[in-house]
């Protein structure tokens, strides 16, 4: 057994997901939960559960000291951080290791290096991975931003170096817009990440978002587990993801996989990670950022490769070598994931509240990842994603058909969800054809929005 006991420093569907693999490996699990999550399914699923504080994340799920204390008290020798929350916090990784607890993820050094988007761009460029043309260093003030943008030409993408989830990020089309956006985004980034450093990238028009899943062990073995297409997004938040990408040809797939491996090697990366790229119609690809953690959309990769990514994370953290060579990995069939959000399907406003009835679809080639249950109170304190639905087919068309039937079967009462919106999106001819770009939702469904 790689570990005696694993504490999951997360909540919702991903905590449940990680516990399932721990159960498969016969590793007991420890849950930590906030006051708002007392009745959550993940708390009951764990072998032991500890309350760690108030409803707001900084009172509980971001409290490193308390989480580490719980791990010690429970005798957990490893912590899985999931995604979001503390998963990409280099200090947390460091503090776990100092406490003699294995952080199931990369080294604190790698997290830090990739957490600064400016540093990440420099590292990747030096490693020979194509990056989006843009500023090499931090842009200190609005005047520098203006002169830089004049040089590369509008529109430009203004980004926060510490950014994530679209915060501090904005496309600007004119100098006026840039002047206005620079200060406000820098301030936003300062508030959210404690770092207001900004940089500028050229806008890659009509790009696809395609990312490569990586696995890297402590013995220099780095594998890519192919790509995921994540172009269906709203406000830089992914909604639908699939594997393989309908865009890539075999040659580009190979090249992007090799580039991702090169990127991981350049920083001596270990554990699971994802390199995000923007890809244009001519199959040119550019490094966007690296996520040094498990991705929300990892199940589509698992479905088409048969690899349990969480299991590999645990083995790698326990210093086991990867058991495959690159040639051993293959894509079989096609998988699509939709994210189910507690939100109004027309206004997209959050819709917390009590779930009266919850009945997910069942059947072959249907996989559910669920963080809630009937009579559960979806609290306003956390992310609106309450579940994920993944379907698999021999072909993309099969996977879409199964997904459509499954979505029609899904019953959630008591709160509003995006289920009707998801059905509209997968019925759209551009989605059916597999030619959606990152601008798809905005252009086809939110025409009145900017």
């Amino acid at each position: 057994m790689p570990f005696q006991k694993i504490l999951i420093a997360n909540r919702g569907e991903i905590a449940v997901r990680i516990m399932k693999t721990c159960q498969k490996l016969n590793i007991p699990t420890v849950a930590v939960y906030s006051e708002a999550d007392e009745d959550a399914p993940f708390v009951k699923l764990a072998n032991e559960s500890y309350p760690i504080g108030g409803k707001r994340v900084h009172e509980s799920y971001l409290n490193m000291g308390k989480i580490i204390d719980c791990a010690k008290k429970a005798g957990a020798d490893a912590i899985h951080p999931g995604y979001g929350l503390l998963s990409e916090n280099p200090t947390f990784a460091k503090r776990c290791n100092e406490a003699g607890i294995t952080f199931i993820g990369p080294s604190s050094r790698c997290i830090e290096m990739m957490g600064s988007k400016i540093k990440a761009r420099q590292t990747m460029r030096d490693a020979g991975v194509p990056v989006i043309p843009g500023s090499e260093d931090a842009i200190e003030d609005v005047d520098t931003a203006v002169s830089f943008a004049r040089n590369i030409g509008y529109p430009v993408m203004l980004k926060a170096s510490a950014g994530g989830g679209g915060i501090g990020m904005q496309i600007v089309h004119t100098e006026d817009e840039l002047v206005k956006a620079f200060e406000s985004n820098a301030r936003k980034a300062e508030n959210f990440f404690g770092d207001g450093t900004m940089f500028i990238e050229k806008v890659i028009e009509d790009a696809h978002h395609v990312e490569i899943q990586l696995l890297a062990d402590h013995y220099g073995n780095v594998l890519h587990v192919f790509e995921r297409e994540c172009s269906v997004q709203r406000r830089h938040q992914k909604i639908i993801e699939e594997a393989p990408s309908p865009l890539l040809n075999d040659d580009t797939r190979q090249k992007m996989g090799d580039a991702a491996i090169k990127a991981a090697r350049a920083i001596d990366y270990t554990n699971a990670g994802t390199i995000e790229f923007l890809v244009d119609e001519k199959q040119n690809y550019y490094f966007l950022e690296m996520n040094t953690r498990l991705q929300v959309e990892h199940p589509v990769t698992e479905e088409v490769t048969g690899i349990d990514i969480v299991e590999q994370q645990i083995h790698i953290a326990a210093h086991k070598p990867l058991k495959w060579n690159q040639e051993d990995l293959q894509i079989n069939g096609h998988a699509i994931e939709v994210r189910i959000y507690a939100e109004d399907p027309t206004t997209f406003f959050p819709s917390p509240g009590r779930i009266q009835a919850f009945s997910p679809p069942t059947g072959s080639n249907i996989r559910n990842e669920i963080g809630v249950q009937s009579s559960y109170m979806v609290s306003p304190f956390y992310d609106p994603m309450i579940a994920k639905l993944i379907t698999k087919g021999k072909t993309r068309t099969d996977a879409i058909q199964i997904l459509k039937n499954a979505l029609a079967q899904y019953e959630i009462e008591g709160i509003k969800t995006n289920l009707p919106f998801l059905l509209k999106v997968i019925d759209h001819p551009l989605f059916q054809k597999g030619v959606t770009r990152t601008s798809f939702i905005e252009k086809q469904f939110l025409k009145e929005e900017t």
Partner: protein
Amino acid sequence: MKEIVANMAGSVWKVLVNEGEQVSATQDLVILESMKMEIPISAEANGVLKELKVQEGDFVDEGDVIAVLEYK
């Protein structure tokens, strides 16, 4: 009289006005916070804030009355 209602469920993050205060049509009265989104609720008309029905930290449902405004 006009009732100002919440357009989403969430908690009251900030109250920006006091009872008795003169408010203008576009002025934000409170900011609701839900699932990482902040939504300001504005006055919709010029008037005096007759009654404030929430305080910071309260949970409101969609459609709950947040404030009562008296037209001027």
